[in-house]
C-alpha cells in the first residue's frame, strides 16, 4: 500500500502505533447496525420485450410471487410500471422496487421505444438532485428511487443482437449499470449458446456499449468476479413451478423431453446471476450508481444550467456565487421586461385615447352640422307655413267675398224662381 503512505506523508499525517487495545474494530459493526436499522433499498429495471420472461425471472430471483398479470401486447407506446415491495430476510429489510417496461418492442414503429426508459432514469436522478439541492432537506429519510441495475433481456435468437437492443443499450449505458441476459435460455443448445455469447459480447464491444463489469479490485471477491465476467451475458431460465427431481422438489420447467432445472448450474446461469446480483455485488451496484452515474448526470445538468466551477480567468467560482449572479441577472431581466410591458401598456392606452378623442370630435362636428341643417329646415318650413297661412287667409277672404256675391245673386235669383214656382204651381 505504498501509494496510501505517500498520500499520508503529503498531508502531514503520521501513523501512530498503539501500545494497547483501543477497541475500534467494532466500527464496521456499528456501521452495519445502523444500516440494519435504516433498511436497504434496491431498484431493478427490467428491459425486454413482452413475454420474454421478465416477471418470472424476478419472481424466481427473489423466491416470491410478486403479483403481476400478463401484460398486453397492444400498447400504443412503451410505458414503465414500477412496483415497490418490502422483503425481509432474518434481520435485513430490503425495499425492492421493480420497474418493468410494458410494451417494449411491440409497436410497429419502434423509434420511440427507448426514450421513455431514458426519461424514467433521468427523472429519478432529477428527483434526487432536487432533494439534494433543497435548503431544508432530509437525505437520510429519502426513499432512493434511482435505478441501480438494468437487466436487459436479449431474445434467444441464436444469431446476434437486434438493432433495437443495440440502440437501447447504447442510450442507457452511461446512465445505469447494465447486465445483459439471454432470456428463455432453455431454447438454445449448449454449443449454440457458446457461439451466441461470443457473438453478443463482440458486438457489444465493437459498438462501444459499456456494460457493468463486476469489480475486481478487492481481494475477497476479485477471483469470483473475474470468473463471472467471462460468463456474461448470463443465460437464464425462470420458473416458480416445483417439480420432483430425485427426492427433492426443485424449481424447473418440465417438457416432454426432459426437465430444465433452474438452479442447476449445468442447465443455465441462473445461480450465477443471483450470486452476482444479490450476494456479492449489490452494494457495489448501488455505489456505482451513486458515485458514477448520478455524479455524471448532476454535472451535466448543472453545466447545462450554466454553472461551472471555473469562472472567466479560470478562477474558482462557487455554485452559490454563480447561483446568486444568475438570480440577479434573472431579476434584472424580469424588471426590465416589466418596465417594457408597462411602457407598452401606457403607449397603447395613449393611442387608444387619441383615437377615441378623434372619434368624439368627429361625432360632435357631425352633430353640429345636423343640428344646423335641422334649424334651416325648420325655418324653411316656418316660412312655408306662413306663406300657406297667408294664402289661406287670402283664400278665405276671397271665398267670403264670393259667397256674399253669390248670396246676393241667389237671393235675386231665388225670388225669380219663387215667382216661377208660383207660376208653375198655379198652372197646376
Amino acid at each position, binding site marked *: 500500500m505504498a501509494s496510501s503512505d505517500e498520500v499520508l506523508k503529503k498531508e502531514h499525517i503520521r501513523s501512530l502505533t*498503539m501500545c494497547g487495545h483501543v477497541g475500534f474494530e467494532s466500527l464496521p459493526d*456499528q*456501521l452495519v447496525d445502523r444500516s440494519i436499522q435504516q433498511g436497504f433499498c434496491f431498484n431493478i429495471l427490467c428491459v425486454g420485450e413482452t413475454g420474454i420472461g421478465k416477471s418470472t425471472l424476478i419472481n424466481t430471483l427473489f423466491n416470491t*410471487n410478486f403479483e403481476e398479470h400478463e401484460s398486453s401486447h397492444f400498447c400504443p407506446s412503451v410505458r414503465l410500471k*414500477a412496483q*415497490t415491495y*418490502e*422483503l425481509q430476510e432474518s434481520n435485513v429489510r430490503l425495499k425492492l422496487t421493480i420497474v418493468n417496461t410494458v410494451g417494449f418492442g411491440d409497436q410497429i414503429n419502434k423509434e420511440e421505444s427507448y426514450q421513455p426508459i431514458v426519461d424514467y432514469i433521468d427523472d429519478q436522478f432529477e428527483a434526487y438532485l432536487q432533494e439534494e439541492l433543497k435548503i431544508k432537506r432530509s437525505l437520510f429519510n429519502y426513499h432512493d428511487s434511482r435505478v441501480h441495475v438494468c437487466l436487459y433481456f436479449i431474445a434467444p435468437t441464436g444469431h446476434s443482437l437486434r438493432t433495437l437492443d443495440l440502440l437501447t443499450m447504447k442510450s442507457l449505458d452511461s446512465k445505469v449499470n447494465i447486465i445483459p441476459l439471454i432470456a428463455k435460455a432453455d431454447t438454445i443448445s449448449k454449443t449454440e449458446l457458446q457461439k451466441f455469447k461470443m457473438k453478443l459480447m463482440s458486438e457489444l464491444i465493437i459498438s462501444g456499449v459499456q456494460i457493468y463489469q463486476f469489480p475486481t479490485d478487492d481481494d475477497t471477491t476479485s477471483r469470483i468476479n473475474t470468473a463471472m465476467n467471462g460468463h456474461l451475458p448470463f443465460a437464464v431460465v425462470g420458473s416458480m413451478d416445483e417439480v420432483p427431481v430425485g427426492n427433492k422438489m426443485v424449481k424447473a420447467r418440465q417438457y416432454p423431453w426432459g426437465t430444465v432445472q433452474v438452479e442447476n448450474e449445468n442447465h443455465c446461469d441462473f445461480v450465477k446471476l443471483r450470486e452476482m446480483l444479490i450476494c456479492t455485488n449489490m452494494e457495489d451496484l448501488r455505489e456505482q450508481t451513486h458515485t458514477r452515474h448520478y*455524479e455524471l448526470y448532476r454535472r451535466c445538468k448543472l453545466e447545462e444550467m450554466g454553472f461551472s466551477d471555473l469562472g472567466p480567468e479560470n478562477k474558482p467560482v462557487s455554485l452559490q456565487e454563480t447561483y446568486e449572479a444568475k438570480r440577479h441577472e434573472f431579476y434584472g431581466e424580469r424588471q426590465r421586461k416589466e418596465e417594457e410591458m408597462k411602457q407598452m401598456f401606457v403607449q397603447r392606452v395613449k393611442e387608444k385615447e387619441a383615437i377615441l378623442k378623434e372619434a368624439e370630435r368627429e361625432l360632435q362636428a357631425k352633430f353640429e352640422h345636423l343640428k344646423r341643417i335641422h334649424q334651416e329646415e325648420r325655418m324653411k318650413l316656418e316660412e312655408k307655413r306662413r306663406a300657406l297661412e297667408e294664402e289661406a287667409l287670402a283664400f278665405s277672404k276671397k271665398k267670403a267675398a264670393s259667397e256674399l256675391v253669390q248670396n246676393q245673386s241667389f237671393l235675386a235669383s231665388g225670388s225669380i224662381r219663387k215667382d216661377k214656382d208660383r207660376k208653375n204651381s198655379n198652372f197646376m
Partner: protein
Amino acid sequence: MDERQSPSPCSSRPSSPRTPPCEMLGSVGIEAVLDQLRIKAMKTGFEFNIMVVGQSGLGKSTMVNTLFKSKVWQSSLPSLELPMPQTLELHSMTHVIEEKGLKLKLTVTDTPGFGDQINNDKCWDPVLSYINQQYEQYLQEELLITRQRHIPDTRVHCCVYFVPPTGHCLRPLDIEFLQRLCRTVNVVPVIARADSLTIEERNAFRSRIQENLKTYCIDVYPQKCFDEDINDRLLNSKIREQIPFAVVGADREHLVNGRCVLGRKTKWGIIEVENMAHCEFLLLRDLLIRSHLQDLKDITHNIHYENYRVLRLNESHQLPRGPGCVNLAPASPGQLICPGPGKVRRRANKDSKEDEG
C-alpha cells in the same frame, strides 16, 4: 423503518403508500449485503474528529493519549520555557491508527489558552468559528460541480468539555460555553482530574451538574430528541444518568498486583485508570469509540451539518423565510456569528417527537 415518501415533483416516481410486505418462500441471500458493507468499510477506512476543550492543566492531552493509547501529543507536559498562550489558539493533529486491519484517521483539536485569560469574554468565538469553518469547507466541497468521490470529512464529530473539579457546580464560563456549543456540535462534558474528589463528592457534584444542565437547557450528547427507538432510549438513558463522567487520565504504567496497568502513582495509592471502582474512564472510552462513534458521526452529518447548511443558504439569499431562518449580517466566509440562545430552532429528525425533548 418509517415509510415516508418525500413529495416529489416528478410524476413517474414509484409511489406506493403502503408497500406490501412479501413473503419469501426461501432464502435468497440478501443477508450477504451486510458482508459487502463490511468489506467496503474495511477498504475505505474511517475518520473521526474529536475536539478537547478546557482550561490548561486539566489533563486534556493526557486524556487523549490515554483514550487512543498512543502518544498523540509529542509531549504531555507543557514546556516551562514557552509563554502561556495569550489568546486562544487551536491546534489540530491528524494521525492514522490501525487495529486488526481497520484504519482510523483520527484528528484531535486542542484548545490551549481556553479560559486562561483575565477577561474570558467571547472565548468561545474562536472555537465556534473553527467548527463552522469545517462545516463551510464541507459545504463548499459538496456544492462543487465535479465532486470528489469521497469528500474529506474534517467536521468535528465530538467535543469533550473538561469541567474543573471544584465540587460545587458549573461556573458561568462553563454554562455560557456549553449553551452555545450544544447547538452546533455534540458535546460530552467530563469531570476532569476526578482523583481530587471522593466518591461521595463526585456523585454530589455530578447531580448538581445535571441539575445545572437541565436548568439552562443544555442538551448534551446523547441528546434525548434523537433517540430513534425504545432500545436506543434505554441505552441512552443509562448513559445520561452517568453524564458527566468523572475521568482520570494517565499514560504511565505501573505494577499493581502483578499486572501492568495504566495509572497515576501517588503516595497514598495508585489510581487505576481502567478500574471502574476508581474512575469512569472506561465509560467514556466505550461511549466515544466502542459503541457510539458511528452515531456521533451520523448526528453531526444529519443534524448539525444540515442546520448549518440551512442557515448558510438562507443567509446568502437574504430573503426572510419561515420561523427557522435567522437573519445574519452578511458574513465574511468562514466566520459566522453564532446566534444567541433561543433564536434558532433545532431541526431534528422529522420522526422525532420534540415534545419529549
